């Protein structure tokens, strides 16, 4: 039979066999099938009919696609910048030994424990134009003119939904940075202080470079989360009013499962996949590089 050395080499592959098979059947297979479906017209009932690139040609003329894409981009930008700014600020503040820091940390992190669906429902009530907390407070403090139908006014609906996602994310980013701050080298800080660096200089030239790995993780997580944003939109607005708060994932869902255009839905899914892949590849190559470095 095989000699001991070869067997030793093969053992890992034998173990890998099971997960790889599962992965091929449940992840790669369906993915390839989605690619195929995106070239077909399929109502989910009769056999798919091959129509070439027609779905894509329709897609690139579909106004809703561009609204959704734009909304996704807006989501990425807001979802990346605001939680990082707020989360980092909170982390810097709470990293000091102030009384009640633990309580604050816990309460800021708390929204993260809630499922997105729960967040969406709760915030739908807060946003309710007639008796919701937000408009009620605005009216009480004399800013009634700002009160609006947060989820029905097409001008603010997207931002209103993204705000909920941000509200939930800040605590999470804070925790990531708090963990990152543990690894900041105190000696460097002391040295900088001795050298007369101002607080701002210390922050940008000592803290930030050391927090760079955390920042990369936060950015990648934010982008991927933004691209698959679906739950909040689905619960709070279903993309409405008239698609103004539609995002790609929601657009795909409506077309495929509400309008029964499975092929068209698959084409949208492929586009989402390609966009996500770019960021995931960037992240993975970076991780791989770090691993080889380490």
């Amino acid at each position: 039979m095989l000699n001991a050395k070869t067997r030793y080499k093969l053992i890992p592959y034998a173990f890998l066999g099971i997960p790889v098979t599962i992965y091929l059947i449940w992840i790669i297979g369906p993915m390839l099938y989605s690619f195929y479906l995106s070239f077909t017209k399929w109502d989910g009932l009769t056999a798919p009919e091959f129509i070439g690139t027609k779905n894509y040609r329709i897609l690139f003329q579909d106004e809703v696609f561009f609204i959704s894409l734009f909304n996704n981009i807006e989501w990425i930008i807001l979802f990346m910048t605001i939680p990082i700014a707020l989360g980092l600020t909170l982390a810097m503040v709470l990293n000091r030994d102030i009384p009640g820091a633990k309580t604050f940390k816990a309460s800021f992190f708390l929204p993260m424990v809630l499922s997105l669906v729960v967040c969406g429902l709760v915030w739908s009530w807060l946003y309710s134009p007639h008796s919701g907390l937000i408009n009620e407070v605005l009216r009480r403090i004399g800013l009634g003119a700002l009160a609006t139908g947060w989820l029905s006014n097409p001008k603010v609906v997207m931002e209103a939904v993204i705000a909920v996602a941000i509200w939930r994310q800040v605590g999470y980013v804070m925790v990531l940075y708090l963990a990152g701050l543990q690894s900041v080298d105190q000696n460097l800080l002391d040295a900088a202080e001795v050298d007369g660096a101002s607080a701002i200089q210390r922050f940008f030239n000592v803290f930030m470079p050391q927090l760079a790995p955390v920042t990369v993780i936060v950015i990648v997580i934010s982008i991927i989360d933004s691209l698959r944003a679906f739950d909040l939109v689905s619960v709070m607005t279903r993309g409405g009013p008239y698609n103004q708060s539609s995002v790609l994932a929601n657009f795909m869902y409506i077309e495929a499962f509400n309008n029964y255009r499975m092929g068209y839905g698959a084409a949208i899914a492929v586009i989402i996949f390609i966009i996500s892949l770019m960021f995931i590849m960037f992240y993975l190559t970076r991780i791989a590089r770090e691993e080889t470095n380490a």
Partner: protein
Amino acid sequence: MKNKIVISVLAALFVLGMAPLFAGGQQEGTAEGGQAAEQDVVVYNSYWSDPEPKRVEAELMEMFNEQNPNAKVIHSTVAHEDFKQAIRAYLTSSAPPDVLTWFAGNRARFFIDKDLIMDISDVWEEAGWNDSYSKGFRAMSSVDDKQYFLPGNWYWWAVYYDTRVFDEYDIEIPETWDELMAVCEKLKDNGVTPFTVGTKYRWTAAAWFDYLNMRVNGPEFHINLMLGKESYDDPRVLKVFNDYWGPMIDKGYFIESPASYAWAEAIPFMTNGDAAMYLMGDFIRDSYPEEDLEYLDFFRFPIIDPNVPVGEDAPTDGYFIPKNSQNPEMAKKLLKFFGSKEVQEYVAKELGRLVTNNKVDTSVYNENQLKGREIVNAADYVAQFYDRDTTPEMADKGMNGFMEFWQNTDQAEEITRQAGKIQATTLRRVTHNLLRTSAGGTLPPAFHT
């Protein structure tokens, strides 16, 4: 440390992933195993998910179990919107539920055409429904003179109002458009918003389009528009938006930010006196607060053009058996039960819906039911409802158009042109289907009992 977490997460996912498999296995075990002889399992999925209908259905299931001691009904209730999305998966699976609720008319015919619904002519024959159901309902359930569907109950649409508000301002029930506008003006002057509406899920706006289009252009034009034989890009459609609907929105005859509310969330405006009327189906009664129910009344949507035949929305819900049903015998039994005089009477009494079996004596109906029935019987034509009369895709885009119009009433021309374009590209491939199935494109039959 990191690896440990990854491994435990993967392990958890794996276990969670397997759970349904085991659960499924167990279920099959009971269905096919030794118990099969004693217990005849029949799976029934329904969309009667509002609290009142849910209660009544639970009671019906108990009644059925009493009558058929060896039957075991596995009954699941799925929320309305989710049900619509799940039905294709049900129908194409190898072991679909044995009985499903569904909408009569084009939405059922779509599946009949795809050969996914069981021919139940034998049930119609044996249960005597060919005599006890009106011709209209029979035609609605038939394709090529074979029956595939059981219409269970139906309801009417009307303008619901709060009698307290009407009494307070001494308002008479409006019968014409001018009278309705005068009522709106009077309410508005007194600080009451004439109409409440919650358009978050959009179909409430579609009701306005249905009625305005039918009253202005006639039901025949309306149905042809639904079937794609007339275009949205037609000056007659534009008239509905610019001459009737738009001015109402502009004058503030509807509550503010309607898209923030689901349909039932807009009811409190009526009960607390901020708004006076709601264009709604009779199921509004199920969600109306009990203490205010005695003040809830309704009238027929006012006539706009007396020269145009009268059309009404009267959606019919019913049941069918999927073609691949695993237990057609028991499924047919359940269907016979749903269509029987006793059950129909029970539903009519408990739920206040109108029922389809002629054998049900009209004395079971209360005053409201008789009045609603009269509205529909007096109509020249009966439509199902916007999203039931056209294709799901066109309904989706059309309703988005209504929502856009609600926000930008000056954009009607652009919106109808867009709708016309969408209709031309998306409805074409199904028009053929609809025309063929709806008996040569004739209007849905009116109910005559």
